[in-house]
């Protein structure tokens, strides 16, 4: 697609009447999902329009001012391996980098970094303004336009209409958003930002089913009002591990984090005021995340705990705001203040922003296909919190895939899927389409059956073929990754054929306490490979895990025959004899496209799958016998 220069590239943003209003792809919302989608789409050559309420609020972090963490760090690196932007952004703006789980084994180690929120947002705002074929406009989308059930485009509050082949919806918590602070509630998507009220009605009118979820965020405190001498200090890693495979080293200013904890007094205050918490007064009926609960939920659920940890995190190098991680709440303001003041170090805390909970609409995921396209309305793609996920990283991964496929649809190319076994992104998408999400979904390493194979440091090698097919990364980088992969397999082979003291090096490396650098230094054949130290340790991990990975692979292959066995779209589950009624309900709702996905639907038993297989074999006796 070689576009001629367009008038729109020279018009200022936010203009009410733009002469050109037809695009290949429209992205709604410039959050973490929206930014990835818009950038990917434009970079793949599609004329992309990004419509968001406030262009300067691009990639704003509503909650935790951090990127990465267990399993999330893996996702960030996978996004990078496929050509997304998040990893580069955090490498450029991070202020406190740490590798987690360093003592627990390479497969569960994951990088995390505090971000300078303002710098992070500015990084994306700059990119949005300077990427060819990408136009960012400040406006609010009020409706999707469709004709005879086919998606045509969007209409905005200001009256403009835009048409496109694909639309990517990434509205985060803004769809029908309602904020709760104690007894007060008011419409809003984030504090100080309005909600998107009309769009939900438009979706419903098009036959799209919505659900409701909630999430919460703690107060923000004035940095100079806290007493850091009463808290423990947490220092960043001296040698930060970059997120992007393109970043060779990180040399940025950093700040420490602080650790304190709630006290018995804090708990008493909360307990005495539970009746004023919207969660318990019944004002909020939607479900929140189990593993990121409000502090009042923690108190109720773990009554024996005398204290809960609070991490006090800086929101930026120059920022006056500190983020107390672990005490999100929707209790009223006066209770919040008493509660904060009972925490060591926060006795004189000044609150810059009060904690609040936000309820929002999301699109139920049985309507989502593994390409991120909405089944009800082809051409519509959904990514991010609108699919019931929580976390910037989960949103970015979905946004990347949605943007790629939105551009491909507009170019009449086939859409791509990311296999479950290939990555945490694959696990994420597969889980979304096989579950009827009832609480906000977050990634954990435990969700991946083959987590030994999915390490953060091998994301580039794992995904190089998929990255090449996608086409976002420059050819040079693909080549470099392929050469690295060859280097590793060559080195592994050399290790198998090199003997020290009668034992092959790869066996020696598997012994506990083995130091790979030592072996490489002592053997001329290995030295001649010329591997840098970090690659030596990565290779050692590969070899150490080889046996376990082979085992995981064999058991995966045994069920491969079944994994991709396609299930016909119009299958009437109610007519299959021998299926339990609960299973019939679930499968009829989620409509998995393969037998493998059907097996992963919660509640479906192996007996049910056998019944399905027998039934399908009776329909097509010559298939997959």
């Amino acid at each position, binding site marked *: 697609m070689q576009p001629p220069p367009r008038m729109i590239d020279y018009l200022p943003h936010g203009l009410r009447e733009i002469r050109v209003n037809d695009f290949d792809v429209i992205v709604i919302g410039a959050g973490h999902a929206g930014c990835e989608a818009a950038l990917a789409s434009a970079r793949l050559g599609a004329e992309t329009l990004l419509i968001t309420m406030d262009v300067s609020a691009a990639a704003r972090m509503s909650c935790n001012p951090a990127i990465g963490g*267990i*399993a999330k760090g893996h996702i960030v690196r996978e996004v990078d391996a496929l050509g997304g932007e998040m990893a580069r952004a955090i490498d450029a703006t991070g202020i406190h980098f740490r590798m*987690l*789980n360093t*003592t*627990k*084994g*390479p*497969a*569960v180690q994951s990088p995390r970094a505090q971000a300078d929120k303002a710098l992070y947002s500015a990084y994306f705002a700059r990119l949005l303004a300077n990427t060819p074929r990408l136009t960012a406009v400040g406006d609010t989308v009020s409706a999707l336009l469709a004709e005879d059930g086919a998606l045509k485009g969007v209409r905005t509050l200001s009256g403009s209409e835009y048409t496109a082949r694909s639309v990517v919806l990434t509205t985060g918590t803004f769809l029908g958003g309602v904020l709760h602070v104690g007894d007060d509630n008011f419409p809003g998507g984030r504090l100080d930002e309005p909600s998107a009220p009309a769009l939900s009605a438009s979706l419903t009118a098009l036959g799209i089913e919505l659900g409701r979820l909630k999430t919460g965020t703690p107060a923000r405190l004035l940095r100079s009002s806290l007493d850091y001498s009463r808290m423990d200090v947490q220092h960043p890693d001296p040698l930060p591990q970059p997120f992007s495979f393109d970043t060779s080293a990180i040399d940025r200013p950093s700040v420490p984090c602080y650790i304190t904890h709630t006290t018995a007094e804090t708990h008493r205050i909360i307990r005495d005021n539970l009746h004023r918490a919207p969660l318990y007064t019944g004002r909020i009926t939607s479900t929140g995340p189990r*593993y990121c609960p409000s502090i009042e939920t923690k108190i109720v659920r773990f009554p024996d705990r005398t204290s*809960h*940890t609070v*991490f006090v995190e800086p929101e930026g190098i120059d920022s006056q705001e500190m983020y107390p991680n672990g005490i999100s709440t929707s209790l009223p303001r006066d209770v919040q203040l008493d509660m904060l003041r009972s925490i060591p170090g926060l006795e004189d805390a000044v609150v810059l922003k009060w904690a609040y909970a936000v309820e929002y609409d999301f699109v139920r995921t049985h309507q989502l296909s593994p390409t991120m396209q909405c089944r009800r309305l082809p051409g519509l793609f959904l990514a991010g919190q609108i699919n019931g996920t929580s976390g910037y990283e989960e949103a970015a991964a979905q946004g990347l895939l949605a943007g790629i496929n939105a551009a491909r649809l507009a170019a009449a190319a086939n859409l791509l899927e990311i296999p479950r076994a290939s990555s945490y992104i694959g696990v994420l998408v597969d889980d979304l389409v096989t579950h009827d999400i009832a609480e906000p979904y977050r990634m*954990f*390493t*435990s969700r991946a*059956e083959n*987590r*030994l194979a999915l390490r953060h440091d091998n994301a580039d090698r794992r995904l190089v073929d998929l990255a090449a097919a996608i086409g976002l990364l420059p050819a040079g980088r693909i080549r470099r990754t392929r050469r690295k992969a060859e280097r590793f397999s060559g080195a592994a082979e050399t290790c198998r054929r090199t003997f020290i003291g009668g034992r092959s090096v790869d066996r020696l490396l598997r012994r*506990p*306490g083995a130091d790979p650098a030592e072996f490489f230094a002592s053997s001329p054949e290995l030295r001649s490979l010329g591997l840098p130290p970090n690659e030596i340790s990565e290779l050692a991990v590969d070899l*150490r*895990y080889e046996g*376990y990975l082979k*085992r*995981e692979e064999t*058991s995966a292959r*045994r*069920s491969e*025959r*079944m994994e991709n066995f396609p299930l016909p779209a119009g299958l009437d589950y109610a007519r299959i*004899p*021998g299926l339990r009624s609960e299973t019939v309900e679930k499968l009829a709702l989620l409509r998995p496209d393969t037998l493998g996905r059907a097996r992963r639907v919660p509640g479906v*038993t*192996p*007996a*049910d*799958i*056998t*019944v399905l*297989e*027998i039934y399908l074999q009776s329909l097509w006796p010559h298939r997959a016998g």
Partner: protein
Amino acid sequence: MNGLIAAISTVPHAGGRSIVRLSGPGAVDAAAALLDDAGAVLNAPAFSSIEARLDGLAVDVFVFRSPASYTREDLAEIHLPAGGHWADDVLGRAVRAGARLAEPGEFTRRAFQNGRISLAAAEGVLALVSARGKAAARAGLRLLSGHAPPALRLALDDLRRLHADLAASLDFPEEDIDIIGPQTLIESLARIRVLLGRTGGGGIDGGASVVFLGDVNAGKTTLFNRLAARDAIVSEIPGTTRDALYAVLRLAGRDVTLVDLPGLAAAGDFAPLTARLAAREASSADMVLLCAPADASPAVSVETRSVLAHAGADALIVVVTKCDLAGSAAAADSAREAARDAGLRVFRTVDSKPGDSRAVLAALTDALSSGRFEPGLVASVALQRAVAETLRLVTEASDSAAAGGLDICSSLLNRAVIVLEEPFIQGSGHGSVNEALLHDIFSRFCVGK
């Protein structure tokens, strides 16, 4: 390998009746063709018994249509009023008409592969069929019902909990979940190895199973909870009935499974269903604990008596509960009479007050040590292999924990849980269980099962 098979399902040349069984596509038509008049059977509904004639003699024909049959295929049984050469001849006719002679265990194998029963249950069928005594038969029946030997149940519970704790500590390193470190892992895994060792060597020690019977208000569940609190694991093996509660105790040097059946004698639509499950639990129990409240009359209801009639236990202990409310003599007599009517031997009668279960425990311990009561050993290849494989995985997991590879340890624990519960999962016939094992198991069957 899914064609029509036929076999004689009764012991050849013995007894006054024999059964010719056919399973597979066309089974019902093939059975009909053997009869003098095919009509009644050809159009028989899904689940029916028909009186017909074969060679002029009256026979009973049972028709089961897929998937509501033992093998989940179409299945027909012709019950002949005699055995011997006539039965062989009828079988011969079936084979000449296109059926194949079934291999040993092939019906049960199809039941397993078609997801009707779990692998453990399949071995339970074999154990039942080849049992040489009541205790062995009961052990087989328990396997068929999906019960795990008690030590295995404990090991599985501990494994699951350990795996979950480790997974939580890996995924939430910064919460203050009680961090599970290598030392805890090694110690817990050592304990699990001991439990697995207790499941038996040459055969799987079925442990001893004690079922609590009695009416809803008999204080049975309270007593169960008191005894179970000593080792309070109430667990679920896939495939076991959810209407019962299970707990494992160690008494007199052996692992004992306590089974409580709440809801007996509950009125309403569900009563017949519960009674059937209760009857099955009762018939597979080695010992019965019959609870009769001192203050109720009758102390043992009609519903409980009818379940009692199914019990084949070697020993029964009468527990008169609520002795603080009334004298125990009447209830004790009533209960002993109910036991006698059911043909069960009363080992001891015990009075019990709320909060005091010592006398009951003593009675249980004495009964177990008395020698008159034999728990059953069952040779289960699937379980034995599962236990052996789990032991290997657990040892490896312990080694990797010691070496600091907690991620590998977690992956191994995951595998161990899957391996140990696999035999109990209904419908694992495809893909995961290997051919050699299946051949091993099913070849020990006799033909026709």
